[in-house]
């Protein structure tokens, strides 16, 4: 069987990593390419680059960044942020990205998922879903969490699968940034309701949170940012712990 994947996420704005990272191994911790190389060498299974630039104008550097990353690393990576058309995806894949992640644009125009999937193959289309729980209901949000989409998480997840998504990247906004662990119950429910891989995001604080996401949450992959960027967790330690727990892992 395929192993459970560990995925560091790098937030990018105007071609630079955003969250402060404190790596003495790196000459320039703001350089996404150096950071990507570092994670790839440390045993990360994949990388996600999320462009959070304020405008399309400022996002223009993304394509050349993707080229530099593809030149430097030999593991797969996903690029997300501001993608709303077939041409955006073509430009990123042609530059060397392996997959793209779409979020708000899929909510606004669900047909985009079908279009991207039939043009490029479902394997390179990840749909990211941000949701928070309200009175036993998981509500989907867009615009980076500012606006309710009027969709229920599990309905939306089934719909994106049907429309051709290859993977779902699920972020619990209730857990994101809290370091209390992933939303395992919702993750497990997602996994039972759709038959495409689920990437867990939001809430990683320690190694056992990851183990829980894989066992209780039945996630196929887990994504995190700050615990890796601030070296609170070393990927090698995390993977050793996964192995000890009997979780399939690439070591």
């Amino acid at each position: 069987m395929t192993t459970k994947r560990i995925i560091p996420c790098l937030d990018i704005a105007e071609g630079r990593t955003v969250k402060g990272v404190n790596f003495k191994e790196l000459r320039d911790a703001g350089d996404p390419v150096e950071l990507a190389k570092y994670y790839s060498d440390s045993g990360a299974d994949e990388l996600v680059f999320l462009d959070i630039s304020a405008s399309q104008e400022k996002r223009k550097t993304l394509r050349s960044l993707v080229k530099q990353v593809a030149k430097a690393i030999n593991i797969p990576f996903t690029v997300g942020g501001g993608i709303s058309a077939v041409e955006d995806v073509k430009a990123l894949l042609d530059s060397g990205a392996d997959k793209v992640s779409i979020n708000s644009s899929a909510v606004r125009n669900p047909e985009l998922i079908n279009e991207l999937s039939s043009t490029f193959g479902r394997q390179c289309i990840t749909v990211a879903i941000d949701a928070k729980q309200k009175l036993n209901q998981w509500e989907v949000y867009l615009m980076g969490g500012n606006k309710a989409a009027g969709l229920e998480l599990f309905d939306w997840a089934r719909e994106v699968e049907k429309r051709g998504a290859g993977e779902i990247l699920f972020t619990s906004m209730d857990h994101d940034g809290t370091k209390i662990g992933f939303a395992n119950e919702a993750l497990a429910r997602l996994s039972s309701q759709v038959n495409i891989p689920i990437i867990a995001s939001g809430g990683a604080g320690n190694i056992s949170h990851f183990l829980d996401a894989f066992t209780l949450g039945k996630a196929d992959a887990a994504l995190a940012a700050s615990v890796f960027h601030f070296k609170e967790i070393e990927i090698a330690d995390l993977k050793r712990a996964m192995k000890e727990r009997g979780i399939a892992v690439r070591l």
Partner: protein
Amino acid sequence: MAGAGKKEVLILDYGTGNIQSLSYAFSRRGYTTVLSNNFDQIQAAERIIFPGVGAAKMAMQKLKENGLDLIIPGLTQPVLGICLGMQLMCRSSEEGDTTGLGIFDVDVRKFNCGVKVPCVGWNQLTEVKTSLFEGVHKQDYVYLIHSYYAPACEETIALTCYGTPYSAGLRKKNFFGVQFHPEKSGPVGEQILDNFLKLPTNDITS
């Protein structure tokens, strides 16, 4: 053969994007890549990569539009099909009921054994043989992303398992195919690309 010693790999161009990572992987090994659908150039190339992403039916159609379906089976230099490229070298694919090039004597099927589809991620090779896998060991990990697979057959040179055991690698004479992405499979993948670059450019057709 023309162009000997050029340190160049030809990537078949039939309009199925995303070959950038492959060409970067070869440039890290000191090789240049040329993307081409020109018959003369293809015939003269020392080594050929047959890439492929997307859907089988559309890809096969594009091969035919370029006339590549007619010349690929007759090539005599080392050819490496990757992912969908490997699948198109098989007899047929269940994906869109596509007739393949028939180089490998096996029919590609859809995963249908209670596993998530697409299969995405790193998996272990459970069997490896031939010079393409020299220095690669059983239980080494490779990166795969696909919904259809070639079952184990006589031409299988590497196996992996996802619900069912299947071919991670195939070989017939000078034709090699891998289901995984060597350009995305870390050091193991690079070893396999190096092995491909070391294959003799003639005399492996017997």
